[in-house]
């Protein structure tokens, strides 16, 4: 069995056919983590004993024949999603020793299907960044080129899937943090409609943008994971009271027909920032989709030009408030020898947070300050409405918006660390989706001359998950023979 070719679906078949046990599968992944993750650095912590116990439990259910699709499937979880009695560090010195007393709803849902959690993956500190270099603990490498970044902020999750160090992963996507690293690492990453997956237990970065999303090798695997983690949660006041009439994974039971499907390609995403190889790959993909019967058309959505500004203003504003709770008083990093409360909180935050987090807290605090609120936050709110309306209008003509996931492929480690603006622009195509709360999925669509993966994004209308799974699934089926796994 070639572990690098294994998918959730295939592993399910193997376990059901008793060709491999859940315990053996888990062991296989831990062996690989031990031998390979020194190079990749995708995990921040692993929980081998607990995983072994979970695998045992899963096997009992498999033996009884009464088990779900994810039973015994090994997962990695981004380390900003809480699991009871384990560390949730958010890759920050601030939470280096923080042990959560409760488990996130999305993880509980995986548990209820007897998935096996292998460990917690690296990220940019508090999910702020696009390269996972903002982690306080380690720098994750791109499995396709160890001198390059895996993307971010869910870089550890994407790398763990790409390097076959887990079969499924949960990341979080605030402005592209699932899709961009999935694109850089040549795997599938999906951001659900805002409110479809409970945020309870996801450490907040920007509450009105954050959404937990699956990362896996295939579109179908992502659909299987979403089937498990989606659904209303009374613990999240923004959780939608919606249930998809049938399972997302049921879309894949036969050939997917996308004849007549209308896809719109925003011109605003085809400007000079777009790398020529990514552009070429985009047009090859368009031809492939057209061959499948889809109709693709360019259109203009002028408000998209302001998406990145609106996003950084609003998300930083929310972050400045969300991260205020880390004050050294109750838990987390606490500075030594402070003489007053003011000093304690000032020093703890100065020493506990990294540079990028501080940059965004400053930016957000400024944007919300009285006297600036109208000029910044309020204007950004208006842009948010404009962008949402722009999408609404586009969806009257198109079923799906198609666009490259990122303007470039994975960059070198350290290449952009001193240039936050260039780093921010890596999110230029992904943030609009979070501004409007839409579902979007990134699938591998090609490789550049360095062999680095290129990602293609399918964005749907609110709760249009079925549409994007279908389109991405059909595209993936046509592309599958070109699909590469990294040679590590």
């Amino acid at each position: 069995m070639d572990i690098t070719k294994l998918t959730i679906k295939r592993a399910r078949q193997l376990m059901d056919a008793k060709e491999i046990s859940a315990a053996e599968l888990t062991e296989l992944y831990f062996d690989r983590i031990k031998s390979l993750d020194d190079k990749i650095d995708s995990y921040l912590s692993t929980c081998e004993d607990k995983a072994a116990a979970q695998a045992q439990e899963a096997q009992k259910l498999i033996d009884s024949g009464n088990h779900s699709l994810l039973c015994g499937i090994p997962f990695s979880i981004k380390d900003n999603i809480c699991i009871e009695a384990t560390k949730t560090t958010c890759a920050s010195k601030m939470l280096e020793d923080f042990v959560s007393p409760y488990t996130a709803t999305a993880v509980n849902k995986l548990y209820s299907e007897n998935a096996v959690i292998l460990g917690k993956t690296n990220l940019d500190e508090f999910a702020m960044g696009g390269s996972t270099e903002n982690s306080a603990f380690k720098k994750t490498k791109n499995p396709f080129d160890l001198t390059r970044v895996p993307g971010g902020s869910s870089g550890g999750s994407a790398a763990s899937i790409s390097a076959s160090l887990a079969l499924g992963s949960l990341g979080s996507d605030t402005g592209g943090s699932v899709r961009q690293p999935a694109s850089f690492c040549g795997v599938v990453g999906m951001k659900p409609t805002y409110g479809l997956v409970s945020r309870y237990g996801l450490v907040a970065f920007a509450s009105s943008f954050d959404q937990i999303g699956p990362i896996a090798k295939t579109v179908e695997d992502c659909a299987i994971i979403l089937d498990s983690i989606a659904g209303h949660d009374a613990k999240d006041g923004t959780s939608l009271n919606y249930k998809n009439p049938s399972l997302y994974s049921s879309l894949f039971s036969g050939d997917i027909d996308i004849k007549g499907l209308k896809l719109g390609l925003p011109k605003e995403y085809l400007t000079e920032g777009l790398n020529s190889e990514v552009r070429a790959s985009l047009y090859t993909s368009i031809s492939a989709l057209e061959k499948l019967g889809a109709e693709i058309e360019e259109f203009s959505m002028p408000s998209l030009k302001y998406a990145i500004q609106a996003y950084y203003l609003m998300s930083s504003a929310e972050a400045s408030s969300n991260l205020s709770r880390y004050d050294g008083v109750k838990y987390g990093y606490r500075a030594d020898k402070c003489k007053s409360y003011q000093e304690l909180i000032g020093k703890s935050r100065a020493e506990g947070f990294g540079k990028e987090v501080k940059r965004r807290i400053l930016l957000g605090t400024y944007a919300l300050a009285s006297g600036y609120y109208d000029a910044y936050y309020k204007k950004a709110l208006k842009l948010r409405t404009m962008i949402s309306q722009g999408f609404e209008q586009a969806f009257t003509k198109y079923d799906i918006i198609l666009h490259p996931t990122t303007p470039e492929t994975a960059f070198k480690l350290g290449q952009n660390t001193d240039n936050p603006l260039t780093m921010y622009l890596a999110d230029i195509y992904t943030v609009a989706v979070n501004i409007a709360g839409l579902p979007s999925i990134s699938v591998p669509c090609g490789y550049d001359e360095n062999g680095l993966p290129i990602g293609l994004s399918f964005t749907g209308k609110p709760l249009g998950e079925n549409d994007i799974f279908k389109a991405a699934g059909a595209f993936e089926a046509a592309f599958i023979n070109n699909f590469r796994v990294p040679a590590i």
Partner: protein
Amino acid sequence: MIMKYIPTIGLEIHCELSTKSKIFCDCPVSFGGEPNTRCCPVCTGLPGTLPVLNKKAVEYTVKAGVALNCEINEFSKLDRKNYFYPDLPKAYQISQFDLPVCKDGGLTINTSDGEKFIRIERIHLEEDAGKLLHDGFGKYSLADYNRCGVPLIEIVTRPDLSSSEEAKAFVEKVRLMLLYSGISDCRMEEGSLRADVNVSIRPFGTDELGTRSEMKNINSLKAIARAIDSEIIRQSEILEDGGKIIQETRRWDDNKGESKSLRSKEDAHDYRYFPEPDIVPVTFTKEEIESIRNSMPELPDKKFIKYTSAFGLNEADASLLLTSVSLSDLFESTAEECGNPKSASNFIIVEVLRRLNDSGMLPEDIPFSGKVLGSLVKMLENEEITAANAKKVLSAMFDSGKDPETIVAENAYRITNDTGEVEKTVIEILSNNEKAVEEYIGGKEKTFGFLMGQCSRALTGRGNPKVIQQILRNELDKRKGGV
């Protein structure tokens, strides 16, 4: 000092709502408890937790708005008020900024110059913070998060008050309205009702308001009045000395009877309000607001009119009965049972309140219902027992919880109509008290009272006093004639 200035006073009244659970989680809302035993990951703001708005808290806020004659906004939202303080675990308070649940209301209060309408600008919903304990832990302060997330409403008045008496009357009236709305126990001593006071003064004959100061978190009516009076004097003295009032927040120390500057306007917090992204806006249809309005209990101003007109009570008695929900409930059911509101009111005000005062009990601790009390008042009304025995029955009701019929039967308190028995007793008493009889006959009229008492006692209070009196008089007259 002769008052040369007109004070202008505005209040922000904070009132804890008595919902079962906290505003954003399932933790119980109750006073006290061991520190940090009534909190959870949500109300202590642990990473990854989310607030879920308690619908009851919103409903209670609407009720407060109805009670205080406010408009209810069909669309309101929650906002974050950001500031660092160790008792605030998220470092922001979820409150309401520009779209509160209620706006534009007010209440009429009685002042020395007659009635006055005090406008209420808004009522908004927010969460309470925890408490810091500073004493007894060396160089440390400890935090107790039990109170975190207790739902609060903040009632903001317009600057319509002009004296400490008016402020007191207003807070008292607000307190009553909220108590009767059933949304808060308004216990000032437990901090469930507290006020921030804004005071400014201006010279007589001028219109422009002076610079105001604010005193925060005052938690008794007396302290509110004292703080206002003290601030008026402080500001007057500054102006008299040719000084200028600065806009500032001051801390009132009720023990010392003085306030100290906490921070000036320049140091004021920038709370960086913005819409709370974790909670969807609160919306109501007109029908929903109507249905909450219709579910409101009868409020004290309506009851006052009923008591003084339909029931014929005087205003003082009506006001007294309306100081407590339990007391007015007791009164109303007592009155209904005995059929005579005035007797019910008299008996409660004289006898029941005396017992409460003597024992330090609260009206809500009374161990019997108004129906039961009403049957006692009815017996007294129907002259089935004497007033003296009615008191004994009441006392026994407090002590034993038995109903009045049982107590009357066990103690043979029912007034006897058997004149033969009374006659027999009177004759017996007279023959046992020959000296007293002689004195009476000798013209000492006072002795009659003594003999009367002896007879009543011998009859264990069952004798109808009028009957005893008549028979005693007859018997004594017989003896008088006999001399």
